[in-house]
């Protein structure tokens, strides 16, 4: 089946007076297959919302092509919009209307039967709050209303920008069940952008991670995590004094192997396998007390790939995530970067970014 969403080489430049133009999207690619929950991830300001806005015809782009259901957008958007439900960045509604009236007006405007309004209100748990005016809604209630309006059309493609934003645990759980049900039972394709990585890990089938307006990786969530787990080993010794010695032994034994002392343990990266580590250390006369393969979760993979892992005493600034070279696209995942290399890569990218801004 052809992808539901196909974006290639999307560019969006914000021109600012007296300042360098800013490339919010810098040749972004995105493919979303049918019937999946697709996660759209990236650090703040990496261009997720911009991409979704462009896809929905809210902003003009400076280059690239976009297709939804095989139709060129935004040109053919009016033809396909009836099949798309969308929430873009905590949408606002007219404050003095009730939730129900807001939905009724939208339904009426698109010729959707009135009873859909009640059923989506029920679906997002706003039945009892529907009479109240939106002004009095909490953040989570507004978010639910936004999702309700996206569901109103019974869409075949659901685009949600940070749907979990402001939701309570029950709401998040419910949202997850709802989206999975929609995707897996109803055949709806769902695209969610999110920062809740544990949530994405549970919710999504596939994902795309972007940084600074470019895709850094995409594929199934399981594959991406698997491709990055086991890359590092944590080794402990009975005597902390042998840490530098052990690091020395490992790094000299084989080129490319990284060993960094982290408090009372040694983090080894790029080692061929665990057995090689024990053997090498034993040969050097050092005996270890514990060796653990560090399985990563999506969070560490994300931090590593985007180069936004925190450094002690420093905040990663917006726009300091990794820059992907312009050439190869889609870009190969930089495999087995040591976790400690992440922040360094980050700070390098940061200085580049600063330079670019001057």
């Amino acid at each position, binding site marked *: 089946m052809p992808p539901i969403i196909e974006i290639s080489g999307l560019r969006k430049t914000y021109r600012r007076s007296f300042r360098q133009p800013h490339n919010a999207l810098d040749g972004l690619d995105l493919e979303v297959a049918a019937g999946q929950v697709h996660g759209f991830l990236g650090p703040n300001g990496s261009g997720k919302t911009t991409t979704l806005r462009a896809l929905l015809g*809210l*902003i003009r782009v400076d280059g690239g092509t976009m297709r939804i259901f095989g139709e060129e957008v935004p040109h053919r958007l009016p033809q396909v*919009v009836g099949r798309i439900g969308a929430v873009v960045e905590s949408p606002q509604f*007219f404050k003095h209307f009730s939730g129900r009236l807001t939905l009724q007006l*939208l339904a009426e405007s698109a010729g959707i039967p009135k009873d859909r309004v009640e059923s989506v209100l029920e679906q997002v748990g706003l039945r009892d709050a529907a009479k109240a005016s939106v002004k009095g809604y909490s953040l989570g209630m507004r978010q639910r209303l936004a999702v309700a309006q996206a569901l109103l059309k019974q869409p075949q493609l659901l685009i949600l920008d940070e749907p979990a934003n402001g939701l309570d645990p029950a709401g998040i759980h419910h949202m997850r069940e709802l989206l999975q049900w929609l995707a897996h039972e109803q055949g709806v394709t769902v695209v969610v952008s999110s920062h809740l990585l544990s949530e994405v890990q549970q919710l999504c089938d596939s994902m795309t991670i972007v940084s600074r307006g470019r895709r850094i990786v995409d594929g199934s969530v399981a594959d991406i995590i698997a491709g990055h787990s086991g890359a590092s080993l944590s080794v402990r010794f009975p005597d902390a004094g042998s840490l530098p010695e052990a690091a020395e032994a490992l790094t000299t034994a084989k080129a490319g192997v990284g060993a960094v002392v982290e408090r009372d343990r040694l983090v080894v990266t790029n080692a061929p396998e665990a057995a090689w580590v024990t053997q090498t250390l034993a040969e050097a006369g050092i005996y270890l007390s514990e060796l653990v393969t560090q399985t990563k979760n999506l969070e560490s993979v994300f931090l590593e790939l985007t180069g936004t892992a925190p450094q002690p005493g420093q905040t990663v600034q917006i726009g300091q995530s990794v820059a992907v070279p312009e050439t190869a696209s889609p870009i190969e995942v930089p495999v087995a970067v040591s976790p400690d290399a992440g922040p360094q890569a980050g700070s390098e990218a940061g200085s580049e970014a600063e330079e670019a801004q001057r």
Partner: protein
Amino acid sequence: MNLFKAELRRIARRRLTLVFGILLLAGVVGLAVILASISSKGPSEETLAEAQAQADEMNEQNPDYLDCVEDESYFEDNEMYGWVETDPEYEGMSHKEACEHAVGGWWAEDFIWTYTFDFENEGPFVIVGVMIVAGLVMMLLGSSAIGAEWSSGGMSNLMVWHPNRMRLWGVKLGAALAACAAGVVVLAALAFGLLVLVASLRGEVGVLDGVWWEDTLELVLRTGVLALGMTLLGASLAMLGRHTAIAGGVIAGYLIVGELIVNMVSMNLSMDFPERLSLYTWVGAWITGRVELYGAYSGFNDMTPEVMVITWGDAGVLLGAIVLLFGALATWSFQRRDAA
């Protein structure tokens, strides 16, 4: 069509619509009540006689007046008053009345404080006034319907639902104009009804013949078009500025500061017909059909000033061009600009 109905309902369900609606209705009813209370069907015989006595008393202190009353040929004999014989205003007056007017200077009306509402002559202008106020309010409502949609953030959501921007803008504009037309027509009809009622109860209705209807309809129709144009302008400004306050601010700013500047410029600039710089002149010409501006006296001996005539056609071209210009700008900006 669905979208149009939904947009109309969106306007109708706003609280501002309710507030403005009540204010306008209350205003028209209040106006009718005030007119009814100050108007009366002419003075009674008694008050008339009393007033006449007062006028006589004042006039009798003037010896010339007494001479005039006594002398039937006072005007012919006195060359100072020779003109009275030929003045059409004095035709049909009794000699005493003529003396009152020409010589004495006091007459009964000076001592009677009555006002009779005359629907035939005054009604149309009151209705036009009501329509202009209604048009201003509808302009505010129309621009606020679009401005509030932008500032609340509802516009981008609506654009996701209806990605064809030209259609969305057309429908929104159509709904604002329809609401404006409905409001103005309802208020004009209400004003008409109430004023006729007031006139027949406490004033004079007069003869509403074919010519009257023709003139009145023309006046009312042009005012209605003006109201629609104002709404279009307000909606366009709100679309351009993406905020109601911007539309309101631009219009209020022009009407206050703009006119002030126009006045200052025209005072310091030696140009002919400086009033033509002011929009009020053109709006006046559009409504009344014709405005004459008097320029400086053109020559030494020539005592007739130069006259510039602005007809409603000229005014229509200028005002229409202004409205269309902003309408086109708004359309272009909505088509091109990113929805922030």
